[in-house]
């Protein structure tokens, strides 16, 4: 496979810890950002990103290069964040609390910055999306993965992925309607 990061991972699997550190440094910021977008809470996202690299470390013996390395790492991160989110939601349900308002602490972070109302509205709208729609949107929109790569990360077909992204965007435009600029003539933008 023509992916230098796969070569690093194989090197690490053969026992070279330096190769692991190289991968960690290359993907650290991207993983923190990605987990932040899936979980909405900075402290939780940092913890999750660290978990992802610890899982990567533990997976060295069983690693088989079947995709680009980034796809492999995004898969670990996505599944981990899904699990974390499901765990939080189960706890909230058990306590009889509404999921939407408590699943994300992003509003705390957003409050601290300028333009915080928009950011708060955005993170609330994002946290209202089902986990797979949110991941599909973040992978394609923010992480710049192709439909095919993103589909590989969350284990769905390419057409299902397109549909997830479409529904996510549809929901967001509905929820953020008041923030959207007055509808423009689209044909000129094409």
């Amino acid at each position, binding site marked *: 496979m023509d992916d230098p990061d796969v070569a690093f991972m194989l090197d690490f699997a053969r026992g070279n810890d330096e190769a692991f550190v190289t991968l960690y440094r290359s993907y*650290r910021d991207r993983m923190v*950002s990605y987990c932040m977008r899936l979980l909405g809470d900075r402290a939780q996202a940092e913890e999750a*990103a660290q978990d992802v690299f610890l899982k990567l*470390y533990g997976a060295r013996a069983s690693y088989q290069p079947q995709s680009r390395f980034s796809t492999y790492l995004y898969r670990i991160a996505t599944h981990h964040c899904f699990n974390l989110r499901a765990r939080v939601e189960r706890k909230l349900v058990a306590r009889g609390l509404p999921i939407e308002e408590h699943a994300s602490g992003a509003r705390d972070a957003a409050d601290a910055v300028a333009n915080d109302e928009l950011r708060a509205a*955005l993170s609330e709208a994002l946290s209202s999306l089902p986990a797979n729609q949110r991941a599909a949107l973040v992978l394609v929109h923010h992480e710049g993965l192709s439909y095919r790569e993103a589909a590989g990360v969350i284990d769905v077909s390419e057409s299902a992925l*397109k549909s997830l992204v*479409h529904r996510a965007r*549809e929901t967001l435009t509905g929820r953020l309607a008041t923030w959207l600029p007055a509808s*423009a003539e*689209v044909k000129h933008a094409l």
Partner: protein
Amino acid sequence: MRCEDVKAAFVAAHYAKSELDVKAQAHLAVCVSCNEFCGAQLGLDSLLAAAPDATPRPGFDTRFFARLEGVKKDTKHAERAGVAPRRVTRWSWLALALPLTAAAAVSLVVWQRHSAQLVEQARQDEAIARDLELVENLPVVQQLDEVEAYEVLAEANVDDLDRAMRAPDDTHDARDTNAVNPAGAP
């Protein structure tokens, strides 16, 4: 072409960075609903840009590599335990079961008493460690650490050092006692 198909094609083309096909463009030119939807989609891009990338806060690497060291140690222990020879006969577990159960029951009682204290202690330690991480990377602090270490060594009496090397546990106990009861009151 149905509106739903045009909307789906618009979002797909948006991410594939490809042109919308001619039929969809023709539909869009006359359909108010699709035009509004697609306009909102373009607006959504600017809203999504309001959520910037999150960068790890200071101390992230320190915390990560500390956790990694922990994992490495655990792995080594597990590997050692895994290859350790076990001479267990078919019924030998019975000879172990009763005393182990009794010991476990006693341990549980003791552990329950101490676990709350340990958890609280661990929480405090973690908070302190996090605070320290924020300052420990400053060059000034690192230099101070070095200077301080030399100063302590320079001030130490040779006999004291010798005693400390021979009986580290005694020294530790004495220091703990002093810390609890610094005035030496009974």
